[in-house]
């Protein structure tokens, strides 16, 4: 144990402080907290598991070899058919070795092995018409012996249709399979996962006229076959509920969506490739009343979404048919490194075709399986209850009252549903505009107005906003300002969802429904200030060359200043300083970043206005903008005309994958120093920042984010203080910082 030394923090007891010192405090707390730690699993049990694991590993190797020779694998999918209503969805027993099903497979297609489960696989009224194999979904995927296959069931009943989703996971042992199999019904509904390995779970929604039938199935796979498809006509309620059961998880999970309205409806979108989904992918389902909608966001993998952007449907194009309406939206993410495309589709009763599946290498599957927690009897009970509740709810879910309803009726219903969603109080826009104009020393356009938008439109409007860009996150990680287990996507999403209004694109000022009149009027004052600054004054947002843009701090800071004045004048009880900035678990640096443009910006603009008048604010927005985050944090530096130095960044290590070269800026310097100095002292230190250059790179297959910076201060003492705070070295007034995390 060479590197396990007796090196403690070395905090000697202070005789002047009663009780234990700081280090002993922490030790005592650890002792108390972990004294109830459970005993280890007996080693004998561990070795038994080990033998099982080795057996599986050996079996896996054999299976892969067999797979390479046979090049075919097939799912054995039993399904337990749950149903409602008096109609009996009895099973049929197709001949797995022949019949119409095999004939439709074509030469070289997958062969279906005999299986005790197979006879129950095809629901009554349907026949197996095709089994297709997708060897490679997406150019970014490695060669994968466990590729997606799809199985298509034909519809032998012109009035019926079927919707099937299958996902699969591998079981580590037969016992695991048995244990997980009974879990699958529940996990499919609740979104949970099995205990180990691969399993198959899925759902069948059969819809015949107004009658809806529902079934679930589960089973095992001899090889890592994963397949699924959805096809048919469904009421929105069934679609929405099905989508809500999907659980997409793990690297390599793929999802694609096809729209298919048949001969009389929309054009079929063929060959939609898989859209890779990573850990950062999000999947949302919005379902309200009888208006179903869903949006699926995928990424990274912008190139994979071209099929949507380049499809017969155009971005923003509104599509209508006698079955429904919808539109497509494609939106690149800010920064360009990652991409996202969004497909939104409203389907009162539209016809959809959709398949979902996981493609997992063995090691991925096992790793994924390991991530699921142990199962207890209590889990099973609760999940069963949840499943039952969901099933009951499903049976009574809203269905279209009249399938012959006209499109106009549908549109009216949609409009009505939209109006019901949230509060849209009437606001006295003229009075608020007068206030903004008076404070800003001018007049807003006489036709200044606002519009309310619903959550879906708001979601679209803010989809491209990235409140935590990847390059910022990289530096935060490298400097230890965030942890590896902090979730950039979740934090940015939390911030995005806090948006209450927008300005000043074509639609002018928009407010997001759901606010009461007081809050809405304050937000409107904010947005009208933007309207004045950009359209009357002609203000532009400067990007600058720092990691954190300082330009928005002037616009947002000024708007926050005006809205606060309006709030105070109206004596409205509304907190402007907390909100999303106090999101639980938010790292301090992220909170300060989110506050920066609004609250630090407000303090900056307010300082300038107090000292030099409202005209000086106009100059901030036009011909005399700040040029660094140092100016925002320490307004005196702006008033003194302090300009940053150009500093050459250090050289990265040989062979490093450089991701960025730029300027950290005084704000990031303050964030780095805050941990040791506290925020007020860190800001004071940032006021002595003179300039810097940094280079960022990754190590260890991208797992380690690194940054090296040369940071110059106004004086040697400040450089030493900063170096001490961040554990770096100072030479004269320059600090050489290097950090990975």
């Amino acid at each position, binding site marked *: 144990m060479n*590197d396990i030394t007796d090196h403690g923090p070395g905090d000697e007891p202070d005789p002047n402080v009663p*009780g234990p010192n700081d280090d002993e405090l922490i030790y005592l707390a*650890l002792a108390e907290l972990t004294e109830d730690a459970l005993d280890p699993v007996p080693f004998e049990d561990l070795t038994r598991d080990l033998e099982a694991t080795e057996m599986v590993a050996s079996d896996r190797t054999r299976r892969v070899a067999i797979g390479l020779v046979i090049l075919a694998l097939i799912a054995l999918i039993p399904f337990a058919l749950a149903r409602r209503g008096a109609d009996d969805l009895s099973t049929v027993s197709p001949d797995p070795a022949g019949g119409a099903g095999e004939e439709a497979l074509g030469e070289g297609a997958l062969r279906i092995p005999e299986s005790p489960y197979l006879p129950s696989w095809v629901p009554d009224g349907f026949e197996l018409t095709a089994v297709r194999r997708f060897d490679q979904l997406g150019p970014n995927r490695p060669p994968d012996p466990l590729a997606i296959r799809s199985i298509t069931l034909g519809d032998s009943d012109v009035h019926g249709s079927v919707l099937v989703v299958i996902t699969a996971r591998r079981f580590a042992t037969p016992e695991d399979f048995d244990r997980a199999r009974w879990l699958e019904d529940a996990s499919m509904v609740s979104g949970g996962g099995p205990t180990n390995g691969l399993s198959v779970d899925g759902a069948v929604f059969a819809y015949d006229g107004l009658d809806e039938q529902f079934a679930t199935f589960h089973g095992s796979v001899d090889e890592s076959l994963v397949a699924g498809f959805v096809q048919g006509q469904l009421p929105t309620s069934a679609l929405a509920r099905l989508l809500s059961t999907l659980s997409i998880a793990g690297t390599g999970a793929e999802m694609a969506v096809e729209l298919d309205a048949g001969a009389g409806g929309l054009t079929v979108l063929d060959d939609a490739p898989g859209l890779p989904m990573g850990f950062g992918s999000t999947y949302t389902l919005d379902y309200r009343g009888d208006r179903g909608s869903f949006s699926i966001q995928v990424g990274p993998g912008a190139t994979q979404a071209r099929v949507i952007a380049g499809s017969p449907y155009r971005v923003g194009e509104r599509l209508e048919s006698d079955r429904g309406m919808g539109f497509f939206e494609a939106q690149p993410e800010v920064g360009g490194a990652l991409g996202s495309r969004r497909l939104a589709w409203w389907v009162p009763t539209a016809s959809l075709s959709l398949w979902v599946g996981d493609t997992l290498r063995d090691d991925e599957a096992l790793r994924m399986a390991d991530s699921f927690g142990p199962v207890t009897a209590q889990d099973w009970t609760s999940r069963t209850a949840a499943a039952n509740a969901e099933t009951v709810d499903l049976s009574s879910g809203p269905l279209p009252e009249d399938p012959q309803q006209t499109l106009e009726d549908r549109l009216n219903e949609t409009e009505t549903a939209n109006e019901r969603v949230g509060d849209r109080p009437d606001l006295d826009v003229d009075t608020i505009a007068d206030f903004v104009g008076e404070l800003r020393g001018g007049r807003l356009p006489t036709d200044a107005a606002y519009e309310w938008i619903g959550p879906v439109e708001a979601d679209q409007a803010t989809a491209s906003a990235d409140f935590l860009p990847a390059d910022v996150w990289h530096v935060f990680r490298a400097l*230890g300002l965030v942890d590896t287990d902090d979730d950039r996507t979740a934090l940015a999403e939390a911030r995005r969802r806090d948006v209450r209004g927008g300005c000043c694109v074509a639609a002018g000022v928009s407010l997001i429904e759901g606010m009461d009149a007081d809050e809405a009027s304050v937000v409107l004052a904010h947005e009208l200030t933007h309207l004045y600054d950009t359209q009357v004054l002609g203000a532009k947002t400067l990007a600058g060359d720092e990691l954190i843009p300082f330009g928005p701090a002037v616009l947002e800071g000024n708007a926050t200043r005006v809205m606060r004045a309006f709030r105070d004048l109206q004596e409205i009880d509304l907190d402007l300083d907390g909100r999303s900035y106090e999101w639980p678990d938010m790292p301090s640096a992220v909170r300060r970043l989110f506050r920066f443009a609004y609250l630090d910006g407000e303090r900056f603009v307010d300082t300038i206005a107090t000292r030099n008048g409202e005209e000086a604010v106009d100059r901030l927005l036009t011909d005399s903008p700040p040029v660094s985050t140092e100016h925002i944090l320490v307004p005196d530096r702006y008033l003194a005309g302090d300009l940053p130095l150009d500093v050459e960044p250090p050289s990265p290590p040989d062979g490093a994958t450089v991701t960025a070269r730029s300027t950290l800026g005084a704000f990031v310097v303050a964030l780095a120093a805050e941990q040791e100095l506290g925020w007020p002292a860190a800001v004071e230190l940032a006021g002595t920042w003179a300039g810097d250059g940094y280079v960022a790179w990754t190590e260890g297959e991208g*797992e380690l984010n690194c940054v090296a910076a040369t940071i110059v201060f106004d004086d040697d003492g400040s450089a030493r203080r900063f170096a001490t705070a961040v554990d770096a070295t100072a030479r004269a007034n320059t600090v050489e910082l290097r950090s990975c995390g």
Partner: protein
Amino acid sequence: MDGQPTEPDSDADTYRTLAPNLIRYATLLVGPSDAPDVVADAFLAAMTGPRWAEVQNRRAYLYRVTTSKVSDLQRSTSRRRQRESEAGRELARAWTGSARPEIVTAIAELSSRQRAVVHLTYWDDLTPAAVADVLGISDGAVRRHLARARARLRAELRPLYQPQEDRTHQPREDRTK
């Protein structure tokens, strides 16, 4: 000890010697109920790995593997939590031990990385370099995490360990290694 010769390098001895402290470590990161499974998984993964026979410092290696298993678990729980729109203190909620709630809360409010650094530093007496090696981060990042954690814990814990409390201050020599 009975004086019988032992096989210090056997897997069984390694497990029996190191598992209790590793479980304490994992308990701090994922709570008491998941900790034994995390450690068992870590041992299984380590012992079945191709490098196990070559590992010189098995203690450090097992800490690293345990940290990795914790990350796996937290990734899955993080996704679940995100889906369920929960942002509470999962660790605090999961706690079923007899520790005072104030201590659970104080520790739970640290980030997972900070908890790991604190445990490895204070309980296992690792140097910052050794902690950095286990967690795969730089020495500087370890020091910063430790500084942040100490600053937060100091304020929270001080009132809980006043001399008048009926608690005996354990000397460091009594630590269970």
